[in-house]
């Protein structure tokens, strides 16, 4: 799903709530992200539109918090705790996800399978 900067985006999203896991001094979510407006979108293996500079889930540690919460590799993260993730740098995204004060992050993610499911069911759209 692509979007044009400045234009409203329409996407089917799923809410994913992840409870952070404490590892030593760090709180971890158990997944890694790629992308960002400062990254080369052409390198993103998960995006349909190779100009999409969004934040994508690139890896998930098995049995980690993200895995348990249902996050999938290739998910595009639309929001983190209400913060837009479609127009941020990689580092900004990382920071939003790793705030130490927050034990829980709520993601809005979209993935191709969701879109397709919605199309088939003619379901409703959520506007991010």
């Amino acid at each position: 799903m692509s979007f044009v900067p400045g234009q409203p985006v329409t996407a089917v999203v799923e809410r994913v709530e992840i409870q952070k896991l404490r590892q030593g001094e760090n709180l971890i979510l158990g997944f890694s992200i790629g992308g960002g407006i400062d990254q080369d979108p052409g390198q993103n293996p998960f995006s349909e539109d190779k100009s999409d500079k969004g934040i994508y889930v690139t890896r998930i540690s098995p049995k980690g918090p993200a895995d348990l919460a249902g996050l999938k590799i290739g998910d595009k993260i639309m929001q983190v705790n209400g913060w837009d993730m479609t127009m941020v740098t990689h580092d900004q995204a990382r920071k939003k996800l790793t705030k130490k004060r927050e034990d829980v992050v709520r993601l809005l993610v979209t993935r191709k399978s969701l879109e397709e499911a919605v199309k088939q069911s003619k379901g409703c759209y959520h506007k991010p």
Partner: protein
Amino acid sequence: MPAEVKQEQSPSNATSLAMMQEPQEVVEETVTIEEDPGTPTSHVSVVTSDDGTTRRTETKVTKMVKTVTTRTVRQVPLGPDGLPLPEGTSPLGSYTDSIDRRYLKNGSDRFITPQATSTLTRSYNNSYNDSYGETPESQYIRHYGLHDGYADLTDNYGSLSRGVNFRPPRYPYMPNSYRPENSYTLPIRKDDYGHVAQPQVPMGSSTVDLNRSQPERFQPEPYGLEDDRRSLGPEEEEPYELEPDYSTANRRTLPGANRGRTHREPLRDGPRVRGYPDDPIEAELIDERHPYIHGMYSAPLAQPERGSMASLDRMGGRRSPSIDSIRKDPRWRDPDLPEVIAMLGHPIDPVKSNAAAYLQHLCYENDKIKKDVRQLKGIPVLVGLLDHPKSEVHRKACGALRNISYGKDNDNKVAIKNCDGIPALIRLLRKTNDMEVRELITGTLWNLSSYEPLKMVIINHGLQTLTNEVIIPHSGWEHEPNEDSKPRDAEWTTVFKNTSGCLRNVSSDGAEARRRLRECEGLVDALLHALQSAVGKKDMDNKSVENCVCIMRNLSYHVHKEVPGAEKYQDPSVLQAPGSAGPQRKKKDDAGCFGGKKAKGRKNGENDKSYDTLDLPKRTEPSKGFELLYQPEVVRLYLSLLTESQNYNTLEAAAGALQNLSAGQWTWSNYIRATVRKEKGLPILVELLRSDSDKVVRAVAIALRNLSIDRRNKDLIGSYAMRDLVSNLPSGQQRPAKNLEEDTVVAILNTIHEIVTDSSENARSLIQAQAIEKLVAINRTSQSARETKAASHVLQTVWSYKELRNALTKDGWNKSHFQPTVTATPKATKNGKPGYDDTTLPLMEKNQDGYSTIDQRDKDCKYKTGDGSVDLTEREPLKNDTNRKHYIRSNRPAVSLVDACDVKPQPVDSWV
């Protein structure tokens, strides 16, 4: 040598070029006076070179001015006012100059008339005035150029001899014509001893011109010219403007040109000599002279007044009829050089002084004679005369030494030093209040200071004296300002100019010299005061200002390493910066975050600010001494100079000072970088990228590179300076109109590289500025290996931003364009970077202080340890340093799967 390093950077820096002296008094009493103003000066510029290499460039300038004055005894008819009577008026049995006669003969009476006068140089005028009034009896006329050869050129040889040859057209003033060899004595008007000390007018303007023009290389310097001017005195202001080449000649020529006057003097005198007119008079003169002449032979100099003159007279027969007549007299001959030197030891003081003055004349622009004087052991004798109680004697001796010390022949300078001439000069400086003598002393020292091995000698013997006797008093600075007294402005006197030129030269002699100057009590304070005064008066184009700025620039070099207690400021900077900087940089690595970077940049800026207020060491007392060099207050001063000055050397030096101050990683350089931004200095610097002066462009480019160590500055410079930077690059094999030197092109490329590094945003700006085409062309076709290399680094950095590749590809570029021409390795980018880094960093280091520290880590470590602040993490060091580059580069390649936790910024992938 450290010193060398500094300077070099810019040959262009020229900043330091000091010119040597100027010949000052042209005329004085009778004999010929020569001035050598010029001495070779060397400039050292502290600047760091772009490449990273610092070179020291010295430029030596030598100026020589000599003026020969011959006295002819004549009585000048004085008008009621004491001035010579106009032709029409009856000459009272006065002797007219031989020159006059000529005029008469050649031309018509008219010459003699006022018109003629116009040609006369000021000096004459002055002297005349004085002399006339004072001593009617015998007045000596000074003759300047005596050479016949000149005569050929034109009639005009200004009386002043500037070595025409030497001097570039610029300096009209210098009398070129004199060639000692030919003839010396021109009958000139009278001069009075009293007159001797001619008021020299400090010339701001003149100096200015000189300065600008002065290039690094030997050129005849203004000095001589200036002197002339001075001597000329009040009347002539125009000379410079009039004609570059032979100003005097031209002027003079006016009337006389046709007539083929050769004598300079005539010209000068012309105006005033009104009495000349009649032949009869001349006849008388001749008659009188002859006796004189005859007598002379035996003891030419011995006769206080005339005799000495006589010797001079021999000069060019052509020039003045009178002279011719004299020459005809078989009994007369010039003393040869050994005889003249022997006369220096004559028991009669006037003989000594005349002999010395004659020597000065002979040496003017004549390297052969200088050498002969040296080999005949004349220099120790002259030095010995410096301690002579009679002002006439030590003045003349000093004048001779000034001429002898001028020029490329360093052996002459060494000879003066070897007989303790430097302490003798300093001693005389302390003793005398005679401005003319002081000018001669400082002019000689300026000449001597151009020779490397003598610099420390001058510092050891004279630094504090020069500061106390000249710099401080003339700067207007007061150690303990009186409550009521208003702050005084600097006086741009010749003495100040000479002294500041001398200090400018010695300030380039390395770390030890810099230390001595920095710690010289009152010196930095006075220089700063003088410059602030210049800014206040909007008088920023003169040579003295240039000298002062160059000294400040040189003293600012490596200030962060060399200043006592510098270690204390290293850590703080590290600490502060690190926090903000470290992360930022990393982020930068990520590459072009729009907002992110800027935001970060702001942080830095903010940090800096807070830094300023918070972290800057608090001072209970006002700054003084060398601390003033790097206080944020100086930023405004330099920016004012950059805004207002028209003098390229001053501009270059001011930019170089900012460059030096913004280099390095200590607290003060952080603050300076932020202050330049807050004082709105970046637009001023960017504007100067359009300067026509190569060295100014170079200094500004390097300054911008150092300033971009500050992240916020980097963002701004990337946004607003990129087009101007790129426009200075040659396009392909064709050089742009400016035709900048290799050093400058390399400096600009390195600056671009710095700006683009860690900032894909800036890289984008670079692409938008149409730079890729130029860079590729340089990379492939430049004849300069250094340019090729620098361009290659920029290209590789640009290509490393993957997000930009689409855009580049659309423009028709492909990977091969961004690879070094020499080694084409696909992975060159990533792997290659480290390699590049090695090369580039050193360069940077060499050039700039900021970069000077190659190993950031090492530095960091040092700093940390030194400071005692161990905790600071890498970041801190990184932030200020160039290290970032390493950082970034290393990170990027490795990036793929790193723990986010450890390394926050990972471009590709981050664990969360």
